[in-house]
């Protein structure tokens, strides 16, 4: 006699907790062949705002952690993801209808991407910053600092890799993130949140919303306490309107990317969510 399985309720990830949408709404997520997979939470404007509050509260601690510490935490995510590799492979296989090998390749690449970005945490400032030889008795140094709260519309055509490719670089410098997962493939995003919740990532540093990006993204684009808007996965939305809304508070906007290499791992993705701070300090023997 086969054992009756215990299915999981997929909820949101806000401030380190897993709440349902305050709206009580869910939407049906189906497999590639049309079978029922889960009722995912359909996040509302209120959920998005709660997520921004959680992210704002987390910025100071995460940005203030040592770069070495942030690198270790990001590496820890890779370790835990590796340990749950089979779960993610099965989830992706079912959701995307791809072969086990393809699903496995996606998970492997996602794990390796965490490792790659983890290694940057205590190095990128040396590449992106510099000492400036000004004409006067001053010590003058430019360093990159995190922009603050970054709202992301994750790539919509992948379960895990697109999400990781968008979230990881924003975390490297010390930003806190509110990410809207792929509408069609939201389950791995919530499973990833379980990994994040147990990887020493401080609560609120990553907040994951599932539901309709078309509905949620405008609230994030116009939210005055969001500093940057990554539209990498917003190509199918009315993203020009989102960019216009973001201009009201002069958010840093990253325009949509299309294709298989959307959100490809680059140093620019890290530096793109930083601000250069230049400090002048007088020199004197007196």
């Amino acid at each position, binding site marked *: 006699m086969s054992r009756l399985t215990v299915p999981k309720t997929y909820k949101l990830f806000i401030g380190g907790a897993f709440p349902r949408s305050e709206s009580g709404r869910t939407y049906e997520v189906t497999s590639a062949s049309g079978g029922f997979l889960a009722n995912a939470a359909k996040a509302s404007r209120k959920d998005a705002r709660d997520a921004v509050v959680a992210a704002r509260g987390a910025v100071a601690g995460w940005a203030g952690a040592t770069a070495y510490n942030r690198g270790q935490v990001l590496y820890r995510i890779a370790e835990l993801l590796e340990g749950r590799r089979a779960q993610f492979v099965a989830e992706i296989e079912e959701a995307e209808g791809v072969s086990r090998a393809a699903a496995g390749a996606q998970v492997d690449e996602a794990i390796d991407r965490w490792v790659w970005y983890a290694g940057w945490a205590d190095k990128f400032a040396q590449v992106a910053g510099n000492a400036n030889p000004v004409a006067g008795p001053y010590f003058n140094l430019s360093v990159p600092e995190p922009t603050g709260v970054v709202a992301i519309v994750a790539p919509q055509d992948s379960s895990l890799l697109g999400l990781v490719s968008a979230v990881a670089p924003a975390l490297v410098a010390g930003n806190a993130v509110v990410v809207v997962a792929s509408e069609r493939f939201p389950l791995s995003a919530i499973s990833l949140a379980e990994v994040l919740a147990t990887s020493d990532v401080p609560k609120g540093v990553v907040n994951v919303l599932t539901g309709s990006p078309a509905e949620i993204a405008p609230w994030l684009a116009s939210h005055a306490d969001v500093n940057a808007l990554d539209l990498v996965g917003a190509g199918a939305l009315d993203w020009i309107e989102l960019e216009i809304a973001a201009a009201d508070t*002069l958010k840093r906007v990253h325009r949509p990317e299309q294709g298989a290499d959307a959100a490809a791992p680059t140093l*620019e993705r890290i530096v793109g969510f930083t601000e250069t*701070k230049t400090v002048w300090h007088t020199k004197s023997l007196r």
Partner: protein
Amino acid sequence: MSFLEYAPAPESRAILSLRDRYGLFIDGEFVDGRGTPFQTISPANEERIAEIASANTEDVADAVAAARRAYERVWSKMSGRDRGKYLFRIARLVQERARELAVAESLDNGKPIKESRDVDVPLVAAWFFYYAGWADKLDHAGLGADPRALGVAGQVIPWNFPLLMLAWKIAPALAAGNTVVLKPAETTPLTALLFAEILQQAELPAGVVNIVTGAGETGAALVAADVDKVAFTGSTGVGRAIAKQVAGTQKKVTLELGGKAANIVFDDAPIDQAIEGIVNGIFFNQGHVCCAGSRLLVQENIHDEVVDRLKQRLSTLRLGDPLDKNTDIGAINSAAQLARIRELSDVGVAEGAERWSAPCELPAEGFWFAPTIFTGVETSHRIAREEVFGPVLSVLSFRTPQEAIAKANNTPYGLSAGIWSDKGSRILAVADQLRAGVIWANTFNRFDPASPFGGYKESGYGREGGRHGLGAYLAPATSRSARAARAVEASAPAAKADAEAKPAPAERSRRTSKSAEKGAAK
């Protein structure tokens, strides 16, 4: 007769040989504009200086077309070494004509000659010297080997540092290999037009730099034109409008906008230097400075002493003829700006702050505002929140470093900040927590071409100056697919051979390579 009264020492205007009318500078020549010409006046006495052409949309299109031709036929094909040599020539010509430029700047803008002569114009030359050297070293700009220019840059600059802002914009753009259409501010076009003459003397190829004068509509037309890059310095309101205007395009944008900088004075600060620094921070250039230290945060136990000494010091400042070599405070740049300063000062009084203005005589003609301090200012007051852009200082107090940091960051702006303390460790810790792009410790309002400048939050994005400023006019050589291949190489050794065997094609055509440069709108 007090010790402050001495004979006038005006700088001679004879060094200037101005024309009566100036046209637009397009494709290497001065041409008539199709808009209605306007007069540029001296804000110190409201006398007419010259008639200036106004560029309409067609004129702007002509200028952009000239810049595009120059980019495609000449400038993008020229070696970095030769581009650099042109910039060195320009730097030298600016030095040769430095006094003339300084006089013209003070005449047109109203700033004291000692500032235009000792700060603005020397920095203009320094800016061209600095970026000249970069032109043949772009591989080291931090964007990887063989970075590309963006194409045509449309640049709109303000009236507070007319020639210096021109240099901040043009020098890095040309060094990186772009061509330029620049719009000076309506009230201060003069030195940009003298600069056009310098470009002719330098024999810079026609169309590489085009200067279109006019009002806000000319600037809006330039932002909307077929340019690849928009660089703007000015108000946050206009910056916001530009960000909306370019939404959905592939134009790369940098914005250097307003500020409401906190100048934080701890009780262990070197007080004599701090007083000078506070004065320089807000009264330099009549306070027409986006990074001005307009909010003074003083530790409570030294508040009264600092305010008293500030009042003493301000009483010795000499306000008057910008061309007089002894003048400390010049004229407000325009009637409109004067009205704005008066309005916000009246609001300051109405909201309950205490106003003190230096007892100086204001000339009968022209636009003038005495150096003014508001005490008893609260963080909710408009004079503590809004950019006055004039010689008006709001004084607030604090008790602990944490309170100072919280108050300093309590603004949508984030351009600059100052810290005065004798304790190095505290300076560095406070600097870490201030959300501002430029922080001066025990100094204020220092500028250098090697030092990046630009804001956090609603003070804009992108940096000008230094290597970072160069990057604002460049894109990496690699397309996105090439970058992906590089990352695969980094994370999966097995894919390395494959990625090397098939290098992604470097996308050279203007349109496609730009679309590859997505993260560019930082």
